[in-house]
């Protein structure tokens, strides 16, 4: 670091004593965080830890260029504090969440509403941003919307076919996971962590395992880290292929839609080859992995991987060859680089708006410390860019898998873990296929979870979808939504 920071640094996947973390009065924490964000840091998590008289605020920020995370906290207080969102919009959902969970009110927050529960019975009740005018009409879609898709409520303010404003109200999938994890780990904790977002099982389970390993002051065996990295890339391949197929389906381009649907199943079967479950349930375990990838099995995996990669390349080539598809994708749902940076987009959506951020590159942990994947960036910010980033990542993940399957490390696949250290904060980041997953856990005096904070990449990125729809035709909404393909349940927890 060129200039010293008031925050305490810690690398990805490590822990430090809670008492040693710098403590500020709430307003000073906000100022310090704003200063760091102004210097180029990025907010990974902003959450509350209950402590009388109210709660403490905790901030986890990332210095991507310096490959380190940093933490700070406030003194416990209740009531209100000056809002961070007023100067840095990327904090807006975090502050609303803190207000909903702990009652700490951010003063000056431009749109203070609960995040998940809603003020009445349903999450879609309460005030929505309205545009008034003679030809303005309001369209509400959801929670149950057509297709096999999770529920969410979308409120459009339209002028004819053009969308002026979109507000997204989620919370329908709220299952109370953060509260359930508190007091743990319980017998159900690992399966709950795997089910935070079912299509990101490996991502969340790896993050959770890293937390427990950091709290125990240990690391998983190298072979387990290797296998986790492979499973993470397989998960990325399956989901990106499915997304491209779904994007093709949304513009009714049948060749690619049909082909990608099948190839996605092939990639899921590869994960099932390792652990029996197509989504990777039961593979990652704190301390290592529950199943091993022996040489014979790895050879079988490689043999099935290569044709699937060739098929998906072919299906993608058809997609880009069709001018009718390109005309639908280009200049639709654009999020400009400055907007993306201000709102704090991560993952595919961020990289498609020209932001170079990837946890595997900026904060390598586990096997990514030894083997890197080039970051796939495409400036443009439209649906085409997001689809293109997915294509690039498919190519690069495929190449990574072929390379790594040929060079497995020796050693065991699983080790026992010491009990978690008491009064310790651990932070872990993993680049899930949607983007950055962040888990932060604080243990109490007995080494059980006092507070477990989960930040799915969708928490950062739903705002990107709302921005992307401004000025677009409402009939392009399904396409834009699919180009982001965010998790409802990962957001709702």
């Amino acid at each position: 670091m060129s200039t010293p920071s008031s925050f305490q640094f810690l690398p990805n996947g490590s822990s430090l004593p809670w008492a040693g973390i710098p403590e500020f009065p709430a307003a000073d924490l906000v100022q310090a965080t704003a200063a760091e964000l102004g210097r180029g840091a990025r907010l990974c998590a902003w959450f509350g830890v209950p402590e009388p008289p109210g709660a403490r605020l905790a901030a986890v920020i990332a210095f991507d260029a310096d490959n380190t995370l940093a933490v700070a906290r406030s003194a416990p207080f209740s009531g209100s504090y000056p809002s961070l969102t007023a100067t840095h919009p990327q904090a807006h959902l975090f502050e609303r969440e803190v207000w909903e969970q702990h009652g700490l009110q951010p003063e000056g927050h431009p749109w203070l509403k609960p995040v998940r529960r809603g003020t009445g019975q349903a999450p879609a009740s309460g005030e929505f941003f309205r545009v008034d005018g003679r030809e303005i009409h309001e369209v509400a879609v959801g929670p149950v919307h057509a297709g096999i898709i999770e529920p969410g409520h979308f409120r459009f303010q339209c002028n004819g076919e053009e969308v002026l404003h979109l507000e997204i109200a989620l919370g329908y999938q709220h299952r109370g996971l953060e509260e359930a994890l508190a007091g743990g780990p319980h017998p159900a904790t690992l399966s709950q962590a795997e089910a935070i977002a079912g299509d990101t099982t490996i991502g969340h389970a790896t993050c959770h395992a890293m937390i427990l390993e950091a709290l125990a002051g240990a690391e998983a065996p190298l072979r387990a880290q290797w296998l986790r990295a492979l499973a993470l890339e397989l998960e990325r391949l399956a989901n990106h292929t499915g997304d491209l197929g779904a994007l093709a389906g949304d513009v009714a381009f049948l060749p690619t839609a049909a082909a990608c649907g099948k190839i996605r199943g092939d990639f899921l079967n590869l994960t099932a080859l390792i652990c029996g479950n197509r989504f990777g349930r039961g593979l990652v375990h704190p301390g290592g992995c529950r199943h091993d990838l022996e040489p014979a099995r790895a050879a079988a995996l490689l043999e099935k991987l290569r044709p699937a990669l060739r098929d998906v390349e072919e299906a993608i080539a058809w997609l880009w060859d069709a001018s009718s598809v390109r005309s639908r994708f280009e200049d639709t749902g654009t999020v400009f680089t400055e907007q993306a940076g201000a709102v704090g987009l991560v993952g595919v959506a961020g990289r498609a708006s020209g932001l170079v951020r990837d946890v595997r590159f900026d904060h390598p942990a586990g096997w990514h410390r030894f083997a890197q994947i080039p970051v796939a960036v495409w400036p443009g910010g439209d649906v085409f860019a997001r689809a293109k980033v997915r294509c690039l990542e498919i190519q690069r993940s495929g190449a990574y898998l072929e390379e790594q399957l040929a060079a497995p490390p020796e050693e065991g696949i699983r080790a026992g873990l010491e009990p978690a250290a008491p009064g310790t904060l651990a932070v872990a980041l993993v680049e899930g296929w949607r983007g950055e997953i962040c888990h932060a856990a604080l243990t109490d005096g007995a080494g059980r979870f006092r507070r477990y904070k989960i930040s799915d990449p969708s928490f950062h990125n739903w705002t990107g979808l709302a921005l992307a729809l401004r000025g677009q035709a409402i009939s392009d909404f399904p396409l834009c939504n699919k180009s982001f393909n965010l998790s409802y349940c990962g957001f709702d927890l």
Partner: protein
Amino acid sequence: MFAIDTIFHRLQRGCQTMRYPDGPAPALPDRHGGGLRVDSAKCLPGCSDCVPVCPTRAITRPGKGRLKLDLGNCIFCAACVEACPAKAITQTGDHRLAARRREDLQLGPPGAEQVRLAAALDGKLLRLFGRSLRLRQVSAGGCNACEADTNVLGTIGWDLGRFGIQFVASPRHADGLLITGPVSRNMELALRKTYEAVPDPKLVIALGACAIAGGPFSGLPPVHHGASGLVPVDLFIPGCPPHPLTILDGLLRMLGKLEGKAGA
């Protein structure tokens, strides 16, 4: 030129839909394990090693009573199989898991070592839905894995459409609901309204451990224990998530399409 390419590709590959149920079922992944079998007679006296390791508390062994395993709440993690010293709980490798009644998923008592598979619908409903079944999918607090595997059934390998089964956009067009997720309290109203909007006669299918009994989320305050307490359920398909083959088997079994078939 992609149009010519796709024509060549199609001529080369031909039809990629699997032969099942006219042919044998595709194999489950070898580490999948399939369903479970409970031989409570093999239990060691006083042993309850399997009870605390179950993440969803699906196993009970009250005092000196028999071992009971609720397959409806099972997430098939096989922790109990690993923990059991007497091999009372074993994996069957069988993909067929769907049942018509909730009690058919309770394993343990003599005669109930494995799941009692679903019977076909009765005459009138079978005549009505046997060749044309339209379902409305309701995701009520699920993690999206069951939804993903349901979507997979529409792809060209599985091709659900060839049986006349289709997912529709509106509950008014539907003949039944396919529910996933433990039914979060925030979705309860939407689920009820959707159920009421489906014209009679209607069916309800509960897909996955969450929709049957809450799954990994059972017992958490913001969710119910699955859909059975809220709407009458006609078909239960266990799994977390159920393999697409299990889902397809359940649907076809309910519609009576597996009788006398090679893949039954």
